[in-house]
């Protein structure tokens, strides 16, 4: 019975993927991609990975989808033209098909083998949980055992935001906010925004003992910011470079500062003293959540109207 559910899920998943890749219209491709993300969220639950399910729904399908739709809206319709059957006659089509088939065959061979790993990492993860400062193993891995990965990952996010800013050629160009003077939207917003913030903070708080954590909380926060922005409430903060940058590096700085402090108390990077482990992790997560939310939001805002400002400039 369970296998039937799995197979049905996979069938839908693969159809979504195929539609998304083969659809001629860009908008459809994006919509199918978002649906694929939602299917994946369900699949992750079947794989006993509720954390990834949350992240996939919030980041994978949600934020990625928003970014794609936002980009698509700025390209003119003639660039989303239909592909014709003649594409199949191109060498490129056959090359892609051969590459894809050989990837699948080779991977199937690899996946098909019986695997008996001699080292089990799950055992020590559970055993050391008491010393990690949190009760949820995934949070323990992300912010304690392998916290260096997470530090670099936050750096990756900051880096991407900085590139997005550097591509805006003129700092003084204000971001034109698309205002939607819709009273209903504003009324809904007063209801939604507090709830979004509450959900975000709950996810953050829950991360210590159950699925949830900084990434999920941060992306919900970003969604709240984006909603706020789309409703037409444009704050000067969006337009001032220093505020933007400060928000980006806040999480990274707190993380790095804790890392440097532990370096002198424990002689290893990010080796929290046992009694402070829980508190350190909470502070880092809180700061990182704010920064992730701010970075994802900035990425959305900064890519807004890039084309407009430059097209104007080229015409002048």
């Amino acid at each position: 019975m369970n296998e039937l559910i799995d197979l049905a899920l996979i069938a839908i998943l693969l159809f979504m993927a195929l539609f998304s890749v083969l659809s001629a219209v860009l908008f459809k491709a994006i919509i199918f991609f978002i649906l694929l993300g939602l299917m994946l969220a369900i699949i992750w639950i079947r794989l006993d990975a509720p954390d990834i399910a949350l992240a996939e729904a919030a980041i994978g399908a949600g934020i990625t989808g928003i970014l794609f739709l936002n980009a698509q809206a700025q390209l003119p319709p003639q660039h989303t033209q239909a592909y014709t059957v003649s594409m199949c006659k191109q060498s490129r089509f056959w090359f892609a098909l051969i590459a894809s088939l050989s990837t699948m065959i080779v991977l199937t061979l690899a996946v098909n083998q019986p695997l008996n790993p001699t080292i089990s990492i799950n055992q020590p993860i559970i055993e050391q949980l008491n010393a990690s400062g949190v009760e949820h193993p995934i949070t323990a891995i992300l912010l304690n055992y392998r916290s260096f990965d997470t530090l670099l990952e936050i750096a990756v996010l900051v880096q991407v935001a900085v590139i997005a800013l550097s591509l805006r050629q003129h700092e003084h160009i204000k971001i034109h906010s698309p205002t939607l003077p819709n009273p209903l939207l504003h009324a809904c917003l007063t209801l939604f925004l507090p709830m979004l913030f509450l959900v975000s903070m709950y996810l953050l708080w829950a991360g210590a003992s159950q699925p949830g954590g900084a990434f999920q909380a941060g992306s919900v926060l970003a969604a709240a910011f984006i909603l706020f922005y789309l409703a037409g409430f444009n704050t000067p903060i969006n337009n001032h470079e220093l505020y933007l940058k400060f928000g980006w590096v806040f999480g990274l700085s707190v993380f790095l500062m804790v890392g440097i402090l532990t370096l002198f108390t424990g002689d290893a990077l990010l080796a929290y003293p046992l009694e402070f482990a829980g508190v350190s992790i909470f502070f880092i997560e809180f700061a990182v959540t704010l920064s992730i939310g701010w970075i994802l939001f900035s990425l959305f805002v900064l890519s807004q109207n890039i084309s407009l400002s430059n097209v104007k400039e080229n015409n002048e």
Partner: protein
Amino acid sequence: MNSYLIFSYAGVALCGIGVFGFIFHSHLIKRLIAFNILSNGVFLILVGLAQNAQKQPDHLPQALVLTGIVVAVAATALALVLIKQWYAISQQTTLPEDQEHQ
């Protein structure tokens, strides 16, 4: 055949579809969607296969996938910003070497 293994095979299929789209499409945003499908396939294999080998939920690959998802969204955002800038300058949505193929 447990669900872990079944979903690893689903990951293999997603990888195949992703690779096809990545090479086939010259439209940069479509190529980016294919990249995202490919990365989701890799994530499924990462968790599914490890859990199939351990015969129980394995926390480490799950944490790796969380990191991977964030890196993937960062990559997507970066690529989209570049694509939009490229469109603003060149009025094209494909790279110069792909333009004669259209």
